[in-house]
């Protein structure tokens, strides 16, 4: 899936910023399908492109593992023969000039969107500051991807990433409810709620409150939002 236009620009700049603030040699963002099929969203340069293409071809590496496991993974010395985590990937990535690779999950709670991969030519650990920056980037990217998948305008995205808001707990609770209403994953429910909030030009937290109080619900049969029956049970 190629990202074109303004949205693609946003994605590319996320990659460049990730590489820049962590002071590493390359960064890539990949998206995971529900079955953990990976596609590249963006790459910061040719070095990152080579490594991400390699990973997608071999179906193993830091992005796959970070995304599937929801944990940070790293190989701080790809040339080291001591039990490489990814047999094929490690040797080929080393041959492509990579010394160390890092994978950060891009997730919001149980909703896994993919991974941020960071690459360096030299082997070695990330410093504490680089780690913090990478975590921060991964959480910003998670929100950006959610917002992009909900098809919201670019202006909204900038606002979203700027604010301290994050996603409040009501949105997560509402996503859980919608997941059951529509027999879908929490990830799809999060995107759907965001999409509906944008379409109706309403605050996402207000929509979440309506879902929790059952005045709005997602109807599985008609695949649409309908007025609910009102509150049953305490919230």
């Amino acid at each position: 899936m190629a990202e074109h236009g303004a949205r693609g620009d946003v994605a590319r700049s996320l990659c460049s910023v990730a590489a820049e603030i962590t002071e590493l040699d390359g960064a890539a963002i990949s998206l995971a399908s529900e079955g953990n099929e990976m596609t590249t969203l963006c790459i910061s340069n040719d070095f990152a492109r080579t490594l991400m293409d390699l990973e997608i071809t071999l179906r193993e590496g830091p992005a796959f593992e970070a995304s599937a496991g929801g944990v940070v993974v790293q190989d701080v010395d790809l040339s080291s023969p001591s039990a490489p985590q990814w047999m094929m990937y490690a040797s080929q990535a080393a041959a492509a000039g990579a010394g160390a690779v890092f994978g950060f999950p891009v997730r919001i709670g149980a909703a896994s969107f993919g991974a941020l991969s960071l690459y360096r030519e030299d082997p070695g650990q990330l410093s504490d500051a680089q780690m913090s920056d990478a975590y921060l980037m991964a959480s910003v990217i998670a929100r950006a991807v959610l917002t992009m998948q909900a098809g919201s305008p670019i202006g909204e995205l900038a606002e979203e990433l700027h604010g301290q808001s994050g996603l409040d707990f009501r949105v997560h609770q509402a996503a859980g409810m919608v997941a059951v209403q529509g027999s879908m994953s929490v990830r799809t429910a999060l995107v759907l709620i965001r999409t509906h909030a944008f379409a109706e030009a309403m605050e996402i937290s207000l929509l979440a409150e309506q879902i929790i109080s059952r005045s709005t619900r997602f109807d599985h049969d008609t695949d649409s939002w309908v007025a609910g029956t009102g509150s049953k049970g305490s919230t």
Partner: protein
Amino acid sequence: MARESLVISTLVELADNLVDDYDVIDVLTVLSDRCVETVDVDAAGVMLAWPGGELQFVASSSDSMRVLELFQIQVDEGPCVDCYRDGQPIVNHMLGSDNDRWPRFTPRAIELGFTSVNCVPLRLRGRTIGALNFFSSHEGLLTVEDVVVARGFADVATIAILQHQSSQNANTLNDQLSNALNSRIIIEQAKGMIRQATDSGMDEAFDRMRAHARNHNEGLTEVAIAVVSNSIDPVALDVLKPKKH
């Protein structure tokens, strides 16, 4: 029970929890409950910061506490926010005495019945990772002993986060923080699923996951993950039975 022995038995209980496979959110929830029993306050709660500095609620002793913690994050103002940013405790701050310090937070806290706040930062090697907050709805200030106990609880909370074997890989503090914060989000997502599937309230949904975790010797987060990944039907979760002492 005398105050001293109550504090000791509570710390022993918490220490007992910190062995093997404990659930960090569960431990912090128990810790919040025990704070209310041993320090002279009516509500307690823990907030942690993402590696980027954004605060998030992770555990509390009561619902009104949770509401206030979330409100502070929303308006980016309040005792926990200041305590975290300055890395300094806030002791016996009377609400209403100094309305200007938190013009949006204070009226909301008073509306919920609180009269004073205390806050202790969670600190580790010079870095502040969050804050432990105490809210009182009755007259009377915390004594010097109360404050010492509160600091002790803050240290236990920090250890609980730090000691947690959250991932097999880079076991850094950032990893542990990030996992604890993400666990809380998964729990909220699971609560929504349980509410929808069983027509229960959010608190009841939380209690059911906690009861199920206890009865089956599983972690709270583990149960929440089972719910969101559809490997357990919310209807099949245990119902909390009244405790017998």
